[in-house]
């Protein structure tokens, strides 16, 4: 028997009870000796698979950082090529690493670290982790590149694997797209293969790596990771140390005070959407000076923005106050603007408070004597927007924004509660808005006394105006509804009208176009009563105005699907929405959405993940998948058959040898991979319980010698010799009841 002697090695191998020889040896040695031992050369790692897996993990980390912009593309390409070259160099010099290369690498690492320190000294801000993310990613990338030239041993490769994880994490810190999953998947696969190779190398294993066990391990890791993701609380924006704000391009606007965004040109002034004309960015016809509610663009699934918010809500873009029967417009008094030039963060609360005071609200919108203690601001709602498509220069936010973090020195705040940038909102722009989301519970609003016309400030005049002589039927309908509901206060009137619309109106985007000269509201309320959000909300606004309640049309976005992996709401083009803002004395504008019940509660990531998983599985293209799996199975079957055919013994020697091995294995004596035929025959000879007794084993040596001569000695046995050898082999039958269990079966069942 040729047994392999695998001794316990030093280093990471020597763990465990007695496998840690250093534990006892460390007693009584000095610090210098400990350092010397820790830096002593380790056994070289010969596994090419391990090295390739490590290189893939490192490259994935570098490319993931490049994908999110933390490392430039040129640097990523250079580092990737250098890493591969370094891995090859390390493999070639693994047995005897070049010492002078180590010295050079050490000097290079010191230089890179010094460069990193200089960068963060110039750019880092106290408490702003994001300010050092880019230098940190650069540091990690270059250190990985340098380290790849000196990874002769398994410990070095494991270090590279861990550092690749750090790189992927750095990339993940800036990732907002689900496409990042590809990097995580590749990195995880490389880690699994690398760690599996490490364990195999640690124990002296040989042969190809078991892909089945790797796949099983990966499945378990994914399931465990999903469990962690579901169980652990998701990170919330309020826990952020830094509030992100960044630009990828700087495109000044032609009209800084206006609204831009036409077609794909985010720098061009926005044009009112027409059925046959240019549409707004993302397919929505709003976000312009006018809103024609009879025209609706084709809104798709493309992601416009991604939002991280503690509390999802109505992300307001702008409001309209003037209604002409078909279009909403912005009246000149409310179109006044204030340009803030203080730089980020912009304090918009003071500007909005001044607007509110002009509209008769108290500062902050709270009157303790009127509503008691039930009215107050909730915790800050921090919303970070990641722009994915060219959009209008509007900064969206939930109600009552107080601070805006925007990477530009000026910001415009309009009297219509809109916030506008002076540069184009291009893909990659990131900004953060902090809102108070003044929490006004329905019970509080219900306490508001019936609104008297004397309580309405003059500034709200446009919010009550209607085209003369058009809406007598609408007014009669509104009065009929509120009378039937016995509604006296503003809140009761709004809810009564909403309830009526819920019972009598149907939502559909497939409606016939409005004829020329027709009034949109009359056509909707007394015609088909089928429409979409603009018509439903406009009808509510007109009915409320006929009852003397100040109302305006608000447009913006509602939260889109929640991505539990990135913890972001993905706002798609079809999430553009219109709703109604109703003015309450001493409180201000409050949102009412008559169209639909929009889920506003923060979703449970686990439930969303499972739901999305179920939908994803259900929506998979099963026919192609089945075909592909069938093709793979067929290919595997063919490959297996070919492999077996190739392994099938050829020639007389191969057949007889295979028969001998088969009979020996049946007796429980398998041939070892390192055993020659003669050695195997000798071992078979020691098995004295063949059915034929010693007569079966005695000629075995002669037969094996003949086989070896025939195989390697240019010897062609004659018919008699062949018959002798075959008879010897065929005479091997283990005696009944004496069959040994094969080692494999013993091993697995013991």
């Amino acid at each position, binding site marked *: 028997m040729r047994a392999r002697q695998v001794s316990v090695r030093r280093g990471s191998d020597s763990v465990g009870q007695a496998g840690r020889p250093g534990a006892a040896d460390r007693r009584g040695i000095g610090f210098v000796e400990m350092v010397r031992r820790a830096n002593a050369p380790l056994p070289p790692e010969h596994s090419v698979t391990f090295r390739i897996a490590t290189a893939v993990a490192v490259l994935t980390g570098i490319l993931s950082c490049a994908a999110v912009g933390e490392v430039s593309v040129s640097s990523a390409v250079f580092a990737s090529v250098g890493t591969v070259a370094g891995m090859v160099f390390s493999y070639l010099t693994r047995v005897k690493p070049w010492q002078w290369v180590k010295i050079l690498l050490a000097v290079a690492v010191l230089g890179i670290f010094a460069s990193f320190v200089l960068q963060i000294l110039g750019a880092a801000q106290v408490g702003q982790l994001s300010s050092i993310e880019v230098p940190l990613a650069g540091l990690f990338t270059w250190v990985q590149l340098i380290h790849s030239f000196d990874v002769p041993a398994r410990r070095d490769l494991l270090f590279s694997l861990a550092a690749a994880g750090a790189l992927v994490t750095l990339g993940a810190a800036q990732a907002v797209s689900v496409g990042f999953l590809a990097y995580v998947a590749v990195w995880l696969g490389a880690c699994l293969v690398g760690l599996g190779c490490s364990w195999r190398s640690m124990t002296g294993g040989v042969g190809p790596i078991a892909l089945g066990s790797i796949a099983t391990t990966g499945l378990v890791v994914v399931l465990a990771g999903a469990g962690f993701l579901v169980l652990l609380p998701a990170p919330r924006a309020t826990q952020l140390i830094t509030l992100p704000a960044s630009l990828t391009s700087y495109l000044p606007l032609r009209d800084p005070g206006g609204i831009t965004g036409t077609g794909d040109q985010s720098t061009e002034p926005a044009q009112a959407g027409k059925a046959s004309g240019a549409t707004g960015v993302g397919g929505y016809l709003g976000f312009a000076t006018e809103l024609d509610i009879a025209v609706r663009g084709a809104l798709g699934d493309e992601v416009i923005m991604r939002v991280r918010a503690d509390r999802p809500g109505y992300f307001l873009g702008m409001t309209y106050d003037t209604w002409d029967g078909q279009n909403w417009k912005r009246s000149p008094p409310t179109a006044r603007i204030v340009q803030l030039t203080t730089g980020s963060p912009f304090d918009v609360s003071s500007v909005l408070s001044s607007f509110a005071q002009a509209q008769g609200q108290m500062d902050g919108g709270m009157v303790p004597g009127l509503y008691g203690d039930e009215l107050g601001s909730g915790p800050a709602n921090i919303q970070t927007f990641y722009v994915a498509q060219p959009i209008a220069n509007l900064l969206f936010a939930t109600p009552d924004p107080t601070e805006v973090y925007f990477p530009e020195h000026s910001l415009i705040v309009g009297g219509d509660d809109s916030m506008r940038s002076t540069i184009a909102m291009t893909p990659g722009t990131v900004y953060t808005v902090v809102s108070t989301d003044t929490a006004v519970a329905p019970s509080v609003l219900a306490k508001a006394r019936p609104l008297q016309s004397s309580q309405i400030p003059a500034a709200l005049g446009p919010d009550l105006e209607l085209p003369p002589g058009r809406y007598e039927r609408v007014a009669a309908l509104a009065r009929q509804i509120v009378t039937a509901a016995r509604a006296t206060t503003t809140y009761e009137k709004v809810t009564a009208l909403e309830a009526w619309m819920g019972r009598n109106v149907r939502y559909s985007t497939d409606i016939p176009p409005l004829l020329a000269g027709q009034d949109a509201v009359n056509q909707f309320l007394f015609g088909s009563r089928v429409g979409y959000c603009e018509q439903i909300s406009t009808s509510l606004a007109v009915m409320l105005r006929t009852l003397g309640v100040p109302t305006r049309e608000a447009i913006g976005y509602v939260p889109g699907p929640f991505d539990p992996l*990135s913890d972001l709401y993905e706002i798609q083009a079809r999430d553009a929405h219109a709703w109604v803002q109703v003015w309450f004395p001493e409180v201000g504008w409050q949102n009412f959405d008559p169209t639909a019940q929009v889920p506003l509660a923060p979703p449970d990531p686990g439930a969303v993940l499972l739901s999305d998983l179920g939908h994803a599985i259900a929506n998979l293209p099963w026919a192609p998948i089945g075909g592909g799996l069938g093709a793979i199975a067929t290919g595997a079957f063919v490959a297996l058959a070919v492999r077996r055919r190739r392994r099938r013994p050829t020639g007389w020697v191969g057949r007889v040898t295979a028969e001998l091995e088969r009979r020996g294995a049946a007796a429980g004596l398998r041939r070892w991979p390192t055993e020659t035929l003669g050695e195997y025959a000798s071992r078979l000879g020691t098995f004295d319980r063949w059915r034929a007794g010693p007569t079966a084993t005695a000629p075995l040596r002669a037969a094996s010698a003949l086989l070896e001569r025939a195989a390697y000695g240019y010897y062609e046995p004659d018919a008699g010799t062949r018959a002798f050898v075959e008879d010897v082999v065929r005479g091997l039958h283990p005696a009944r009841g004496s069959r040994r269990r094969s080692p494999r079966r013993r091993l697995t069942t013991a």
Partner: protein
Amino acid sequence: MRRRSRQHRPAVDGAREAMAPRQRVRHLALPERAFGPVAGTALLLFMWAGVAHASGSGWVQTVGAVVAGLLLLGLVAPAFAAPGLTLVCERCPTDATAGSAVEIDVVGNRSMRCTPRSLRGTPLLLARRIPARLVIVPRRRGVISTVTVRVATAAPFGLLWWSRDQVLELTHPLYVAPQPLKRGAALRQTLTPEEGHGPPRPTLTGDLRGVRPYQHGDGRRRVHWNASAHTGDLMVRESENQTDDPIRMVVDLPRDLDAADRLAEEAMGEIVAQLSKGRRIVLETTEVTGRVVAPVAERLSAGRRLARSVASSDAR
């Protein structure tokens, strides 16, 4: 003929197995040195979660969850793999000497580390189904049929070792002979530990007195071939000083293991010394089957006899 007899004082009981003081066999898989990996994992995940919550990035948390899954699997998976570890002895030698290393060919069903527990030995890392040599060092003389080994695994990542004990059955009994008590340089010159065979015996000494029929225990060199041919029976020479008569050695081991070992070592040393001088020895010992009186012609058979010997029933 009994010319000389050395009789050690008898003892009550003897050693059956060349084992160290018995240790409890732990079949339950337990982690080894778990504090470091577990604390390191917890610290790493805590830091990761901190970064995830500080950056607010869901992807950081996702990557952290994947890393947590990796680490959790690395910590826990060996606990499920350890009960399935099986070590099988493929081959082991027949004879050994107390205090000297013995190599046993073993093969495991999975990659593992095995450490002899009942005997001293070297920890061995072995790959799945690849034979390897486990080195054990029996401390006492006796007959070994099983070895308790601690098998451990850290699969699939080598992060944390979980271990349990397994009783490894040898393919056949291992006779551990006592270490011969050294009797000077002559012993080292004449014997090598591996061979167990003595050098050529010295020629006969003394004046020839006559011939006599062959008796059990007579040396081959004493055969008088001419007389044998003449008489038709095997005849041997007799000398005046009769230096080649067999020495009868009676070894009664005491019950105390240490004392028995010391006595066996003395006996072994004496036997080796006498064999190196060409003397013939008839050894009388007590084995499990009873009293055994038989000549020992070489060191190997003497070692086996002493390995098998137990305390005699009439020993004090």
